[in-house]
């Protein structure tokens, strides 16, 4: 007896390190850190405000906030994908107005709802594809491409109906925005559908792997013989589709299409993505975390509203919070990072 043998695995060089499975687990836990952080912040926020204002915790209010944030979160899935390939999509605001205007006008012209909605989504997809072609073929930076495409889309939204808004849609259309199935608003189902869809694309398909790889290092992807055109076209088209769905949903919620309804959704979406841990330097971040980011902003605004804070102060607090959250995550993740460039 006496001498104890070291475990067998350590006798073979290399096996004393944690094995592959273990390393993957550690990596996964690290990846979940950001996500858990946001979830904790959301829960803490809900708890603190909930104790002071019981109304905040009512199921109705919570569902309502989720329903209201569904627009931003829908947009942010597309934006997250574009950010992952080192781009940015600023055309979203314009598309929200333009696509809703297309389907709204078609419905007013007596075309069936399903076809009108499909046409609106198609319009978004085409505009998105056009951004993708500009970025891929003409090598114009995504920032300026989508900025201008957004302006064109905004202009089209104004032009299509002479600058007027459209209102008074059919009950079926309003049901998409305000109706409930099993007590849960339809908007939430649509949001969830898109979360699952983008999860499947990004994390369970070959295309998703290519998208992450392209964001991480474009040259390597090109050298591997993977078509970068396919990636760019898909990402921007998907973002266009998300924006179109968001626009149609927004108009259904309000029962009107307003030519300026796009507002600042593109910036809110980027903020949601970044709060959700999508790295603006590309190649990193989970699309479904954008949902958490959007929810955080939504719940915060709602809480501030219920507390009775003036909207002026809300801007201030949301601004500080965006910087603080990102600063915190940057500080935790890599203490010495290069200055990140976007576009």
């Amino acid at each position: 007896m006496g001498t104890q043998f070291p475990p067998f695995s350590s006798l073979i060089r290399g096996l004393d390190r944690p094995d592959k499975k273990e390393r993957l687990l550690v990596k996964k836990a690290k990846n979940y850190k950001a996500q858990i952080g946001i979830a904790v912040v959301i829960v803490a926020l809900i708890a603190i405000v909930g104790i002071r204002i019981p109304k905040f915790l009512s199921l109705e209010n919570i569902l309502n906030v989720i329903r209201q944030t569904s627009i931003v979160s829908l947009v942010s899935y597309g934006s997250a994908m574009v950010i992952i390939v080192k781009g940015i999509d600023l055309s979203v605001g314009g598309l929200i107005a333009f696509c809703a205007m297309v389907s709204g006008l078609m419905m007013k012209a007596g075309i069936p709802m399903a076809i009108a909605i499909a046409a609106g989504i198609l319009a978004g997809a085409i505009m998105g594809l056009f951004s993708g072609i500009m970025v891929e073929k003409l090598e114009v930076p995504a920032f300026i491409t989508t900025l201008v495409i957004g302006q064109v889309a905004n202009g089209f939204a104004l032009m299509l109906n002479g600058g007027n808004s459209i209102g008074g849609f059919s009950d079926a259309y309003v049901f998409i925005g305000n109706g409930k199935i099993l007590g849960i608003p339809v908007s939430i189902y649509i949001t969830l559908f898109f979360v699952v869809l983008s999860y499947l694309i990004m994390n369970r398909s070959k295309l998703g792997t290519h998208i992450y790889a392209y964001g991480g290092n474009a040259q390597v992807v090109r050298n591997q013989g993977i078509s970068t055109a396919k990636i760019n076209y898909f990402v921007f088209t998907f973002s266009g589709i998300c924006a179109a769905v968001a626009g149609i949903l927004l108009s259904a919620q309000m029962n009107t299409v307003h030519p300026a309804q796009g507002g600042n959704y593109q910036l809110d979406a980027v903020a949601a993505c970044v709060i959700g841990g999508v790295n603006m330097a590309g190649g990193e971040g989970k699309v479904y975390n954008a949902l958490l980011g959007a929810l955080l902003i939504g719940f915060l605004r709602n809480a501030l509203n219920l507390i009775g804070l003036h909207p002026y102060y809300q801007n201030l607090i949301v601004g500080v919070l965006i910087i603080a959250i990102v600063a915190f995550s940057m500080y935790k993740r890599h203490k010495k990072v290069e200055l990140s460039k976007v576009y």
Partner: protein
Amino acid sequence: MEKTNRISAGERIRNFVKENGSFVIFMLICLLASCTIPRFASIKNFALILKQAAIPIIGCLGMTCVLMTGGIDLSLGYMIGLSSISIGLLIKTYEVPIALSICLTLLLGAAVGLINGLCVQKIRVPAFITTLGTGYVLLGVAQIISNGASINRLPQAFLILGKTKVLGKLNTTVLISLAFCAVFYYLLHCSTFGRRLSAFGLSEPTSRLSGIQTSRINISAYVICAVLASVCGMLLSIDVNCAQPTMGGGDYTFTIITGCVLGGVSLFGGVGSVPGVIFGMLTLKVINNCINLMNAPYYLGSAIQGIVILLDIILENIKNRKL
């Protein structure tokens, strides 16, 4: 030997177009407009375009500095609003002497720029997010200190600064803008600061290794941008004789970025020129002016403007690749 040294006429034209893309596009659009729109080619109209472009050009100069570092300043438009309302409050409500209140507003701009720069450089928050956040904050602050109300009828002594007529059709605002252009031409093209800025934008590690104080360069770019934004805010309030917290705003920022890009400033950093930016902004204003002169309904204007800018950017990119 001689043959290789001589540059043919075609080559010379090609080089000229390559280096002065925004000027060439500006001239093309002007030519096209003067052929098709009767009232376009008049001194009065050009004076109007110059007056309209004067203030945004100042903003463009600041934005160029930030874009050259590879960053971006989305808070510029909101800084314009904040400086507008603060100069209004200082001069009208608190009756602070004009010179002092201008200095205070410039200082406010510098402080905001410093915060932006420190966040970007020291905490490494991406510039896009930092300035997006500070933009929200500035808007909030501007609305809080003014209670959302604007201040009308600024004192005459303040208005004189920007509204005095010079050379018949122009006013002092154009002269101030020209002075800023001259200073920035020197700064960006003739001084070591411009060289360092460009080097920093092209490659941060390389410039650090070659002994440039990168953090100082980066932070100063944001400070310059915010200070110029507050100059813009003051001049805009003089222009409309009203100080508003919502002046400028997000759209103004994006107009200024578009002007910079049309002027050949690279969004990837390191490349930018003052004459280019001037003609980029002038191109935007000429497009606007043409749409107005054609009496197009307001709801057509935005779409036409967007499409023309799109074509302009495509042309610029084709030029960069083919020439």
